[in-house]
C-alpha cells in the first residue's frame, strides 16, 4: 500500500510517496510553475512513473502548502503547518520547535508528539524568507548556496541595520562599494535574518529540540549562525520535503481511519486529466 503527500509551496513543489511502513518510495522536488492544477498533475505523473506506480495504487493522497486547493486528485487538503509538524516529528520524535523558512514566508511551530500546540508566522513582509536571501545573493552576484559558503569564512560580519528586503539590499550594495569582503556581508545577512526569525519565534517559546526546515535550512552559513544564537539546531537530511512527508503520513492515517470507520476513500473523485483553471471554472 502506498500513500502520497504533495506540498505546493510558493517557490518549490514537493511530492513524497511512502509505503505502509512509512518508508520513502519516491520523491520529487521542482520549482513551482504557474497554473498549479496543470503543474500538480504533471508532477504527480512524473513521480508515479519514477516509482512505477499508478494513481490507483495510492491509497490516499493529501495536499498541503499554499497551492493545496489546486490539486484535483487529492483526497484531502491539510494546512502546511500541521504537515510540517507531522513530517518533522516523524524524523525527530523529540522535536519541540520547528523553524521553517520557506520561499515567501517563515514560521515557527511548537509541537508536542507531532501535534501543533502553537505557531507564529511572518506577516506581510519578505524579510526573513527565502526570497530575501535570493535578492541579497543576486546583489552579491552569487547563488544562495554560494552565499552560505562565503559566510562560513567570515571573521568579522557586518551589521545589517534594515530588516526590509529592499533597504537591506541597498546596504549590501553600499558595503560592496566600500570594498567590504563578500564573506563578511554574507555573514551579516545571516545574522540579520536569524535575529529577525528568532524575534518572531520567541513569541511561542523556543524549546529544544529545535529543527530547521525549508530550502534555506540547506545553507550551512545560516545553520552556523542559527546555532550561535539558538544553541543546538538540527536539520533533516532533506529539509525541503518535511511538509510533503507530513502530508503523506497524514494520508496514511486518513486511510487507516477511513478503514476503521468503514468509509472508504473514493478514488473515483480524483482527477488526473491535466485540468486547467479555466476548465475547472467552466464545470
Amino acid at each position, binding site marked *: 500500500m502506498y500513500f502520497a503527500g504533495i506540498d505546493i509551496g510558493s517557490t518549490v513543489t514537493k511530492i513524497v510517496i511512502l509505503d505502509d511502513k512509512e518508508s520513502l518510495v519516491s520523491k520529487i522536488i521542482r520549482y513551482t510553475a504557474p497554473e498549479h492544477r496543470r503543474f500538480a498533475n504533471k508532477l504527480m505523473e512524473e513521480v508515479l512513473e519514477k516509482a512505477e506506480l499508478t494513481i490507483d495504487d495510492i491509497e490516499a493522497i493529501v495536499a498541503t502548502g*499554499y497551492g493545496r486547493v489546486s490539486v484535483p486528485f487529492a483526497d484531502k487538503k491539510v*494546512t502546511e503547518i*500541521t504537515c510540517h509538524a507531522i513530517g518533522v516529528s516523524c524524523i525527530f520524535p523529540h522535536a519541540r520547535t520547528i523553524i521553517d523558512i520557506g520561499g515567501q514566508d517563515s514560521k515557527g511551530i511548537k509541537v508536542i508528539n507531532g501535534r*501543533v*500546540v*502553537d*505557531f507564529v508566522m511572518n506577516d*506581510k513582509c519578505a524579510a526573513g524568507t527565502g526570497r530575501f536571501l535570493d535578492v541579497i545573493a543576486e546583489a552579491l552576484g552569487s547563488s544562495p548556496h554560494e552565499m552560505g559558503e562565503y559566510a562560513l569564512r567570515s571573521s568579522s560580519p557586518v551589521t545589517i541595520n534594515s530588516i526590509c528586503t529592499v533597504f537591506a539590499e541597498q546596504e549590501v550594495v553600499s558595503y560592496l562599494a566600500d570594498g567590504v569582503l563578500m564573506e563578511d556581508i554574507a555573514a551579516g545577512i545571516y545574522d540579520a535574518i536569524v535575529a529577525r526569525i528568532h524575534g518572531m519565534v520567541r513569541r511561542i517559546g523556543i524549546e529544544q529540540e529545535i529543527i530547521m526546515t525549508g530550502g534555506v535550512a540547506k545553507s550551512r552559513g545560516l545553520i552556523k549562525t542559527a546555532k550561535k544564537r539558538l544553541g543546538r539546531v538540527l536539520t533533516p537530511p532533506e529539509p525541503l520535503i518535511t511538509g510533503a512527508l507530513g502530508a503523506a503520513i497524514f494520508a496514511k492515517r486518513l486511510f487507516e481511519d477511513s478503514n476503521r470507520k468503514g468509509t472508504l476513500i473514493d478514488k473515483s473523485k480524483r482527477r488526473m486529466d491535466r485540468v486547467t483553471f479555466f476548465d475547472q471554472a467552466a464545470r
Partner: protein
Amino acid sequence: MKEEEAKKSTFKVSEVAKKGYSLVKKYLYEKAKEDAKQGKPVAWVCPTVIYGPFHMILDAMDIVPMAMDHFGAMCAVKGVASYFLDACAKEYLSDSLCGYMRCVYSHAMLAKELGEMPPEAPLGGWPKPTLMVERTTYCDGTYKVFQTLARHYDVPVYHVDLYPGVYHKNIEEYRKRLIQYQYEDLKNFAMFAEKVTGKRIDWDKLSEMVYRQEEIHRLWREVDLLRKTVPCPISNLDLWAVIAPGFWLPGKEETLVFFQNLLEEVKTRAKTGLGVVPEEKYRLMWIELPPWHGLEMFNYFMSKGAVFVIESFWYSQFLIPTDKPDNITDPLLRIAYEVPTFSTKLISMAEDEALAWRTQFYLYMAKEWKVDGLVSHPLLSCRAPSFSQRHAEELLMKLYKIPNIRIQGDIVDKRAMLPFDQLKPQIDTFLESVAYHKELRRKEGVI
C-alpha cells in the same frame, strides 16, 4: 459546511440586530442632515465614548451631533475606504494615522475640491460643522486632524479631557477627584457649545436621555452576560451591528426599544439553547475593533464551529457601573460619574498592581466567558488600545493554556491585512491548536 458556502453565508442570527443599521441610517444620517438643512448647528464628534456623553449633551442643546468614527467604519464596510485613503496618501499623510480620521479628512478635502460631497461618501457624507468636539484621551490622530479641519472650516474645536485612569493605591479617593474633574470639564464643554451656537441645554431632555441611556446600558450588559451561555446565543457579527445605535444614538427612545427587543430575543435564544452555529466547538475572545472591511473572516471562523463570545471591554457594556447613587440628579454629574467609575472599576479589579489592569481584565473575561482561544487584532492605525495585547496573549497561555493568533490588520485600511485566502491556513492551524489546548485544560483541570 464547505468553505465557499461559509464565505457567502452569514452568521448574523439576530433579527433585531439587523434593524440597527436602518436606525442609524435614519437618525444619524438622514434626520441629522435634514435638521442641518433646517439651519440647526452641526457638531462633528470623535471618537465616541461608550456612554455617549457628547451626543446626549449636544442633542439636549438642539445641536446635531455627527459621528465621524462611524463614517470611517462605514467607508470600510461599504468598500470605499481606499478611495479616501488614497486621497490622503496624495497629501503625504502617514498610513499609520487613524483610518477613521483619514477618511474624514479626505472627505472634507474632496468635498472642497469637487464643490459637493464626494459621490463615494457612504450615505451621502456629512454637512459642514458649526463646531467640533474631540476626546483627547488616547487618540492623538483625532486631536491633530480635528485641529486641522477646524482651521479648514474656520470653526472652533473643543478638546474634552476624558481621563483614562491609572492604577492608584487609594482608588476611592482617586475616583472622587476624577468625577469632580470630569464634571468641571463637561460643564466647560457645555458652556463652549452654548457660546458658539447660542443654544441652551434643555435640562429636562438631557436628564431623560441620561436615565434612558443608563437603562440602555443595563439591557446591553444583560445581552453581554447572556453570551456566557453555552452555546452562545448571539454572534459577534450581530454585536458589532448593535454597537452603532448603542454608541451613536444614545439616550433615544428608539434605541431603548431596540435594546429591549434585543434582550428579549437573546433571552429566548439562550433559554431554548439556540446557538449561533449548529455545533459550538470553540469559544473565542476577540481583542480590539474588527476589520470593518473584512467581516467575512468571522463567518469563516463560525463555519468551523468557533464562536466569538466576548470582545475587548471597550466594546462591551457589562462593566458600566450599576451602583450610581440615586441622589445624583444633575445629568452632567451623572455622566461625569460614569467616566471615572468605569475606568477605576476596571483598575480596581486588578488584583496585582504589577499586572497591567487591562491584561487582568482579559484574564477575567477568559474565565467568565469560558474562552478556549484568543484572536488579537493589532490595529496599524490605532496603536493606543493595541498595546496590551501581547501581554494578554502571553499570560493567557501561561496561566490558562489558552492559545492565540494575531491577525495584523486595521479597522479601515485593508492593505494592512493579509488577503483572506492567505489567512485561512493560519486560522485552520490556530483552531487545531485551540482543540489541543481545550483537551489539555480539561485533562489538567485548568479553568
